[in-house]
């Protein structure tokens, strides 16, 4: 499309109902975050900056911390694996499942698993892999993709969900009361937990000192998923490390408040090994799969600050582009400002495919202001725009800018263009038989051109300045 970003195109075709859901949901998220963080802390920014500096320190010493975490986990009987690519991770997880003859499992929400499309892969390979977070469960039933990091079905409403439940046999009749929807999922999923043979989770943090991985949920789905099964596999991005357990006081206090306006998420589980001998419920075997999948390349780039991200979704909630376009417009599990930076970097070999995303921003800076780990997202967006320019990656937006650049560098051409623009005031452009022009004008009302006024003004100003200057000096 002429003069627009791909995201604009996407936003234009979103049904009104979906756009309203995204707008309302994200606005509510921003308000509750602000209210809680500022009520509980006199200077929340100090906490955000501290969190950012702890993450920076960890990333700058990532190799040491990763080895330390591996040792701590191994000492406690956890089997640790390293996956360089998405394919490695999928194969490793499948191999573990095959070794344990697992044919059905539940999975609690994990962005890393979304990133490597684990569900589809396991299902293709004969493993029933059921999402247990309510939102993710509905996404899976609809064969949809999540559109928000924390609120995966922010784009859906109760009527759609009630239809899905009836269609997929979760319920025998249509009922769109949110409480009834939740109860029906409760009944359906707890049967699945009990039948499962394994549970896959992600991790929100991993403490290098103790190897404790921290999994937070509000629903209790990861806790329930793990309680009846003998096998737990955690897929952990290597950027999830933090130095020590004490640092969790900083991160847990920020995560809940930034994500959902809660002081703490309801269930915060600390796991660094199989269940205790005296405990009848819980896995006897635990595996941790550390996932690189492009993260070490991001660490080597000039955008490494994005690896501080703790996946709270606050930048999505506050972003004017996200609110209009929804997460799906970003074509990856990571939508909004975080996705606009992370996707082009993480999927580095497909950079041209995602190079337009950093341009889908007004650079208003709201994302940086709410980020719990103080990531300078607008700076990173600019660095990625620069990278795209240097690598000469064409984007839809490059089209009208090229003639503009030509005009702007030639005074003669510029002068004649200014004259032409005045002529254009009298042309019926909206009915001109030029398709791209019609599309462009379809969303815009052009002000009447006053071409050349600035140049005129500058000329007269120069003359006045020349007259003024000597007098100003004598007065001094």
């Amino acid at each position, binding site marked *: 499309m002429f003069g627009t970003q791909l995201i604009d195109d996407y936003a234009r075709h979103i049904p009104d109902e979906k756009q309203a859901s995204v707008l309302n949901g994200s606005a509510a998220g921003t308000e509750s975050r602000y209210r809680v963080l500022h009520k*509980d802390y006199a200077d929340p920014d100090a*906490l955000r900056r*501290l969190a950012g500096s702890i993450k920076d*320190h960890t990333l*700058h*010493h990532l*190799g040491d911390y990763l*080895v330390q975490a591996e040792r701590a986990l191994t000492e406690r009987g956890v089997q640790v694996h*390293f*996956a*360089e690519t998405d394919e*490695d991770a999928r194969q490793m997880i499948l191999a573990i499942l095959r070794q344990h003859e697992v044919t059905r499992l539940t999975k609690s929400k994990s962005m890393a698993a979304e990133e490597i499309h684990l569900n589809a892969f396991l299902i293709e390979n004969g493993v029933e892999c059921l999402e*247990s*977070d*309510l*939102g993710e469960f509905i996404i899976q039933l609809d064969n949809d993709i999540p559109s928000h990091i924390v609120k*995966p079905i922010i784009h859906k*409403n*109760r009527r759609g969900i009630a239809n899905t439940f009836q269609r997929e046999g979760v319920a025998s009749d249509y009922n769109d009361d*949110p409480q009834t*929807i*939740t109860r029906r999922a*409760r009944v359906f999923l*707890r049967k699945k*937990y*009990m039948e499962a043979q394994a549970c896959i989770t992600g991790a929100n943090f991993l403490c290098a000192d103790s190897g404790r991985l921290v999994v937070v949920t*509000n*629903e*209790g*789905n990861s*806790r329930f998923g793990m*309680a*009846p099964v003998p096998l737990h596999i955690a897929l952990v991005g*290597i950027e999830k490390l933090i*130095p020590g357990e*004490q640092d*969790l*006081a*900083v991160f847990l*206090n920020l995560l809940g408040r930034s994500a959902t306006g*809660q*002081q*703490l998420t*309801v269930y*915060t*589980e*600390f*796991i660094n*090994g199989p*269940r*205790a001998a*005296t*405990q*009848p419920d*819980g896995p006897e075997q635990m595996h941790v799969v*550390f996932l690189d999948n492009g993260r*070490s*390349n991001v*660490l*080597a780039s000039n955008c490494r600050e994005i690896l501080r991200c703790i996946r709270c979704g606050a930048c999505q909630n506050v972003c004017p582009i996200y609110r209009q376009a929804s997460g799906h417009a970003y074509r990856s599990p990571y939508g909004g400002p975080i996705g606009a930076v992370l996707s082009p970097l993480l999927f580095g070999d497909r950079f041209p495919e995602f190079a337009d995303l950093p341009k889908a921003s007004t650079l208003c800076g709201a994302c940086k202001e709410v980020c719990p780990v103080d990531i300078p997202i607008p700076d990173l967006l600019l660095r990625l725009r620069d990278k795209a320019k240097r690598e000469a990656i064409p984007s839809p937006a490059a089209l009208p800018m090229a003639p503009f650049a030509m005009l702007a560098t030639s005074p003669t051409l510029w002068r004649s263009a200014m004259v032409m623009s005045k002529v254009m005031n009298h042309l019926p452009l909206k009915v001109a038989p030029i398709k791209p022009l019609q599309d462009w004008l379809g969303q815009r009302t052009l002000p009447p051109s006053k071409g050349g006024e600035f140049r005129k003004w500058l000329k007269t100003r120069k003359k006045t300045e020349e007259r003024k200057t000597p007098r100003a000096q004598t007065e001094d």
Partner: protein
Amino acid sequence: MSRAAILSKIATATSALKTKAPRPDYDAAITHSAPKLAGRDLWEIFSRNLAAVNGRSMQSVAELATFLASSGQSHGYCDPALYERVGAPLAAAGLTVETSYERGRYDDYQFGITRASGAIAESGTLILDDERTSRRLAALSPWVHVAVLERGTIHRTIADALAALGDSTNIIWVTGPSKTADVEGILIEGVHGPGEQIALVL
């Protein structure tokens, strides 16, 4: 091998850094929330913060018996270690109390009474430690979870509780009933876990 390759790529990336960020030296007090910590004693602070997340705090078995009876939760599980102090008085009040939990009957237990190994006043959080509680499922599948707490085990802050995590390979912090706001942002309690979270101090 993936491990060597990943560590080598990380080493290359971090060794190219001109400056490396030092580990920040900070006082845990920066994480304390003054309004959350206001109050005279830890139980008062804990109860207020638990109420703020729709949990309930109780100080006697009689109070618990009244609540269970009035909400129609008449059949449940009690950790054998708590039977004498909690289970037996409830049974005497007419409730059915089992001291074993059978997985196959996970929906039969309307309440589950288990031990909490501690609590956090600042956030109204209950701490369940694998090594010091009866079973995970009994605290999770019933509609009502009653965590029995010793008054002396309440930590003042989240940072204090982290410093005292201990050695158990599985610890969970529970801050209020299980909840979701996935459907149109509307708060619904009792998703997979309990819809009622009770802290009973003895």
